[in-house]
């Protein structure tokens, strides 16, 4: 009942957020530049591409008309032009690349599995290793395991993913030859190769974040373990393991999950960087290529797509948050 209300209110919230994000993106990328058609056309810009871009953007319409078409395309799909030249762009239509003659949504969907594989694996790795490291450090605080983990953590916090990634390639790829130095194998083709190719990107991307999570988990858990209810748990006769895991960590995880929700955007950015280091053809590579070609349609499409993705992922995190903290459900 309460959970249902929570989900509904979050979904209403996310629709609003998506609308605002779309509006801002539209203003920045289509209204502010002096010649969006030129930018959408790409490099080299053929005259027919430019004409199609002009028609596509409906530059003859007033700004609200343009925005309405833009919005409608995302929700219901749209058709550009008429007759034989007509281009059908199915919902959700994030734009159309005139240079590649492909709807942006299609481009994104072919690249997305790569980025998603990197991001999801790295997130799982950093969450688990960060929480585990932080818990160990908190339980043995001011002792050797704590010092060791926190020393690694402060180094980790200061290590950009691309730097770690390149060092990992140098060590495990070139020097030891244990793992591939780059590229991507689809999971469907060969799960083992998929895993081996992703191992280094995951590690590189997870390193910095697991350090952050270890530090947060440690400080939260240390604080929780000093609270009254933990003393109650001990006074019941619970063993130290149950006290830490069932009570302390359970409460300490609440702010950790909050941070996780906020880090999803950073995660996507990190995946973009990792793609570059490990020469994988994901969304990030598509984005950087499109910047090189000045293909505005694709650039905006990817930006919007990732904003949508994060907003929806945030709803999921919010609901999980409501599940683990009963006090939020009541509010």
């Amino acid at each position, binding site marked *: 009942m309460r959970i249902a209300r929570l989900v509904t209110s979050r979904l209403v919230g996310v629709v609003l957020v998506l609308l605002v994000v779309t509006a801002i993106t539209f203003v920045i990328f289509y209204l502010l530049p002096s010649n969006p058609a030129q930018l959408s056309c790409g490099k080299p810009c053929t005259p027919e591409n430019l004409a199609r871009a002009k028609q596509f953007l409906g530059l003859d319409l007033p700004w609200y008309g343009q925005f309405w078409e833009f919005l409608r395309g995302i929700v219901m799909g749209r058709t550009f032009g008429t007759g034989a030249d007509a281009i059908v762009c199915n919902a959700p239509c994030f734009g159309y690349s005139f240079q590649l003659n492909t709807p942006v949504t299609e481009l994104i969907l072919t690249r997305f599995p790569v980025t998603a594989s990197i991001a999801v694996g790295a997130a799982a790795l950093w969450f688990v290793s960060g929480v585990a490291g932080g818990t160990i450090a908190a339980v043995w605080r001011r002792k050797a395991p704590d010092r060791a983990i926190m020393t690694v953590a402060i180094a980790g916090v200061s290590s950009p993913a691309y730097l770690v990634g390149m060092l990992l390639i140098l060590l495990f790829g070139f020097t030891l030859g244990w793992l591939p130095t780059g590229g991507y194998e689809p999971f469907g083709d060969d799960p083992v190769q998929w895993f081996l190719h992703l191992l280094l990107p995951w590690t590189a991307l997870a390193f910095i974040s697991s350090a952050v999570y270890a530090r947060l988990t440690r400080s939260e858990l240390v604080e929780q373990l000093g609270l009254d209810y933990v*003393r*109650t748990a001990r006074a*019941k006769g619970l063993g130290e393991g149950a006290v830490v895991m069932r009570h302390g960590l359970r409460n300490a995880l609440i702010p950790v999950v909050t941070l996780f929700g906020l880090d999803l955007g950073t995660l996507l950015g990190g995946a973009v960087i990792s793609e570059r280091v490990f020469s994988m053809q994901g969304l990030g590579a598509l984005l950087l290529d499109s910047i090189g070609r000045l293909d505005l349609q694709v650039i905006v499409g990817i930006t919007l797509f990732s904003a949508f993705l994060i907003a929806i992922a945030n709803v999921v995190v919010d609901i999980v948050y409501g599940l683990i903290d009963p006090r939020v459900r009541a509010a």
Partner: protein
Amino acid sequence: MSPADVTPVLSVRDLSVSFGGSGEADRVVDSVGFDLAPGRVLALVGESGSGKSVTAMSVLGLLPETARVSGSVRLDGRELVGAASAELRAVRGGRIGTVFQEPMSAFDPVYPIGRQIAEAIRVHRRGLRGAALRARVRELLTSVGLPDAARIAASHPHELSGGQLQRAMIAMALSCDPVAIIADEPTTALDVTVQAGILDLLRTLRDTRGTAILLITHDMGVVADLADDVIVMRQGVIVESGAVAAVFDSPASEYTRELLAAVPSLGALGDATEVATPRSGADASPVVVLDGASVAFRRRGTAVRAVDGASFAIGRGEVVGLVGESGSGKSTIGRALVGLVPVASGHASVAGVELGAAGRRERRRVRSRIGYVFQDPASSLNPRNTIGTSIAEPLLLHTAQSAAERTARVRELLAQVRLPADFARRYPHELSGGQRQRVAIARALALEPELLIADEPTSALDVSVQASVLELLEELQRRHGFACLFISHDLAVVRRLADRVVVLHRGRVVEQGPAAAVLAAPAEAYTRRLLAAAPVADPEAQAARRELWRELEAVR
């Protein structure tokens, strides 16, 4: 039955606890010894820093790792100091149940109450599970006076009241039929009427189950109500011990005498002989007039009336005690008078200014005529400002005085509250609670206010400090003649200071009149219950009050 006649359940000998270093100075508990007999309540009494809680926690081995414990703690003859952790765990919750001070924070906020009690049972009775376990939890909750056991068991801590939680905590302490219960300030965070119920419950446990209870408290009234034997501690050392009646009747040590003398007394109920006339009386132009004033808050979309149609007045130079339990709206009235919360309907005027109609400038003027002293001296002074800056803040806000004039005034004010002039350069964390409260009083008096609002000014202080702060307030009021709204939950404190009393219950004024009359022979049922529930530091008088309270509860 004296404790010497029966075998004690718990016997503590020569217990010393120190933290950090090994020197004598770090000793928090020093050579403490006592016996706890079945079916008896032993009270450890003392002010903050006396080592009473540390003593209790060392019995369970629940002190931080840095603690160094020496001496002997025997439970049924088995030594607990230095015992293996598995053995200690079997004792905790199994042989000895524990009840803590703050029921709101003593439960894990993320689990339902029933699950937390079930967990306590499962630790010691592994065989119990499923429906049998749930039935046991419900049975426990019912036995501590929570008839709505199924709902309570399914509730999270934030959904229950302090009294319900403390009863659930007692149910958890009882879950494995312990031989002894350690109750560490079990009622300090609760209202008096709730406290009376909890104390009664503990007494029933002692009588029906023969459970030995180690009661830790700072409140002599609670001791008089519940304890059979008492140990008075100060700075880690036992000052005095003996049967409650004997110690209260003829305290042997100077410290116990001071402690007892510092507790404000209430006097016998139904005794209205000493009705005094108010000091200056309500003259023609009262400082404060409330007429049907209401204050509402919005909570989850619906308006909740914190104060509902309150009417009373405070005359010039008159001290009015505003009495009520938590949530009665007493602090809200104080805040409404300075315009911190708006008066929703009715009239409220201070120094002739109608608050509802007052503009910015007028409201500022009203505020300059009011001094405000808050409950918690630890948080009412800005930690980043020196004492001098804090005291001078009203001068800075409302006068055009030069820095030198302000400094002189601060010096004068510090002298008035009996603090040395060099305190002006110190920071709040360098002062004790009592000193900080004196600073807060000095600040409130800086502009020679017509009205002083004192919101529970002494409830965060130890009794002996409390007595000296009250004495100071009394003397300053006599000297300056300001009107005073004294907000408190403590009837004895109010009785000592106030000319008139206003009793508040759920936002409504239920009774008002001269302090001596209202507090000796109340006309309203609620006031009678409130009075009967407040424990006094006299075992015999308290026994009589307890009977009266039971009668009043029975007719509810």
